[in-house]
């Protein structure tokens, strides 16, 4: 072993260690931010390691430097700008977009090596001679393409640019996807037989497969899909590692792939969905309209903001249940003002955070943290559920499915078995909502029919602003 090899070995080892520590640290609140920076540092370290290795061995041509600089400046710049500008409410879409680009990168690397096998032949890199390389190139292209198109579709659906086309809910979609899958298998074997041009067939059909698999999935399940695609992009990176013969790439890719899989499972559990039903079951709302799950509301009580303010003033303990509607209305800051007033009046206020509140686990925590809500006031579902019977007022803000008692009482409901917040146990429940439309699952919410539930119709931000006015008139929080 010569010196550059040893140096690279040591740096790679260090990078893997730091990346592992980074992922580990990211799973604890206290260490998360430092861990993220540690991981970023490890990534830069790995680049330094690779470049110094080539400088020490084969050298890097000027021309290569130019293309390296062009690519990195453009990519980093766009990434940094997007990361700084994007509003916190569109976090899931942003992660999907980044993820898709990672998949695209793996796809391009494999494609480059496949099309120009000779030019990389410095160290007997004769790619098409060995079966292993063909397999890893194919896997890298296959997974990379699915990650890319799948992520883009997921992003478009979350942004509302794309709806779920009706035909994708019929059984036809399974047939179509099977055709795509078989076609990619054929392209794969054709490739191994030495027919290089079938690589394009592989690119096309695996891209189509990514679209075909993601398109039928309902918006409510999108976070799980994004997490799964994130895991895929790790696998794509590992496959690219086999293509260019890099252990570091394989380790890091495998780590992300496995960690992503675990995270996906954790998320599925939170929503009481199995991965299989998320991937192949189609969208929830389509099922429920087909069955008799939906029905008419019979006993809706609507009330004014003033009544709501009066009840709040008389309360001792208030629990806030925030949902995606709050995020869409950008009302988290207004909400914080309301709760500040209540707290100043000696009322105990906590926020009940459902594991999948917001459309992505942890999303709501991020939004509330943005509005300066103290971390200690955010209570997880299991902690807060026993408190509801002793609670005077519950404010449900733009949440729907996560407070649906059907999940507990109605075994025929598609939501049955999903862990929910038992808000109906509280003395009074106010649901602030724009209208009677169903939640993300498209299922009727029995909570709205209960006698202790009152609906306050209106945009979350406007209602909260009015609420601040009413509370002021009552002299709440003025002392």
């Amino acid at each position: 072993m010569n010196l550059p090899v040893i140096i690279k070995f040591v740096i790679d080892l260090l990078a893997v260690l730091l990346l592992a520590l980074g992922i580990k640290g990211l799973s604890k609140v206290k260490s998360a931010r430092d861990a993220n920076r540690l991981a970023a540092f490890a990534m830069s370290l790995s680049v330094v390691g690779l470049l110094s290795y080539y400088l020490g061995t084969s050298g890097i041509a000027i021309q290569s430097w130019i293309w390296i600089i062009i690519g990195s400046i453009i990519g980093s710049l766009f990434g940094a700008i997007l990361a700084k500008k994007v509003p916190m409410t569109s976090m899931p879409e942003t992660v999907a977009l980044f993820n898709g680009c990672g998949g695209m990168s793996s796809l391009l690397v494999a494609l480059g090596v496949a099309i120009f096998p000779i030019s990389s032949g410095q160290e007997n890199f004769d790619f098409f001679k060995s079966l292993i390389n063909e397999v890893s190139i194919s896997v890298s292209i296959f997974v990379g393409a699915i990650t890319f198109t799948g992520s883009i579709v997921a992003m478009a659906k979350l942004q509302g640019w794309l709806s779920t086309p009706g035909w994708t809910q019929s059984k036809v979609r399974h047939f179509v996807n099977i055709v795509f899958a078989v076609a990619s298998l054929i392209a794969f074997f054709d490739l191994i037989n030495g027919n290089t041009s079938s690589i394009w067939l592989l690119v096309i059909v695996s891209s189509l497969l990514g679209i075909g698999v993601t398109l039928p999935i309902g918006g409510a399940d999108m976070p799980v899909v994004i997490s799964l695609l994130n895991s895929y992009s790790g696998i794509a990176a590992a496959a690219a590692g086999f293509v260019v013969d890099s252990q570091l790439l394989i380790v890091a890719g495998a780590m992300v792939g496995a960690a992503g899989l675990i995270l996906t499972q954790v998320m599925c559990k939170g929503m009481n969905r199995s991965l299989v039903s998320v991937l192949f079951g189609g969208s929830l709302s389509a099922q429920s309209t087909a069955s008799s799950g939906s029905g008419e509301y019979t006993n809706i009580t609507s009330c004014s903001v003033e009544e709501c303010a009066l009840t709040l003033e008389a309360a001792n303990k208030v629990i806030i249940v925030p949902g995606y509607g709050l995020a869409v209305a950008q009302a988290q800051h207004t909400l914080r003002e309301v709760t500040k007033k209540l707290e100043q009046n000696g009322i105990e206020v906590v926020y009940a955070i459902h594991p999948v509140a917001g459309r992505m686990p942890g999303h709501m925590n991020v939004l509330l943290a943005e509005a300066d809500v103290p971390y200690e006031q955010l209570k997880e579902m299991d902690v807060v559920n026993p408190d509801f019977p002793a609670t005077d007022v519950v404010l449900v803000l733009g949440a729907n499915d996560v407070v649906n008692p059907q999940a507990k009482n109605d075994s025929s409901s598609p939501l049955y078995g999903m862990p929910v917040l038992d808000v109906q146990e509280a003395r009074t429940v106010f649901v602030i909502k724009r209208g009677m439309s169903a939640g993300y699952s498209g299922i009727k919410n029995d909570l709205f029919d209960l006698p202790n539930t009152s609906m306050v119709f209106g945009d979350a931000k406007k209602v909260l602003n009015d609420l601040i006015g009413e509370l002021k008139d009552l002299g709440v929080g003025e002392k």
Partner: protein
Amino acid sequence: MSFISLLWVLLLGSLLGLELIGKVPPTLHTPLMSGANAISGITMLAALTLIVKAEGNVPLLIIGSVSLGFALFNVVGGFFVTDRMLAMFSRKPSNKK
């Protein structure tokens, strides 16, 4: 590196990944996903390798460069956005009575 030893690397890396994430509070699901996502941009190393080994093959250089761009978009954007999310957790509320 022989193929077999690379397979070992793959296996051990996967096991490590499985072990690393045991219990994660739901609060951190989004940042964790976003951070792990940034790490998956490690394909930038493959893109770099491609560019270095291109030896003046312009189409390959371009493919490598585009690939590097996509990867860095993933990496830089991913880490920044994760940091932005996590910064909100660490901010101390100053006006507490």
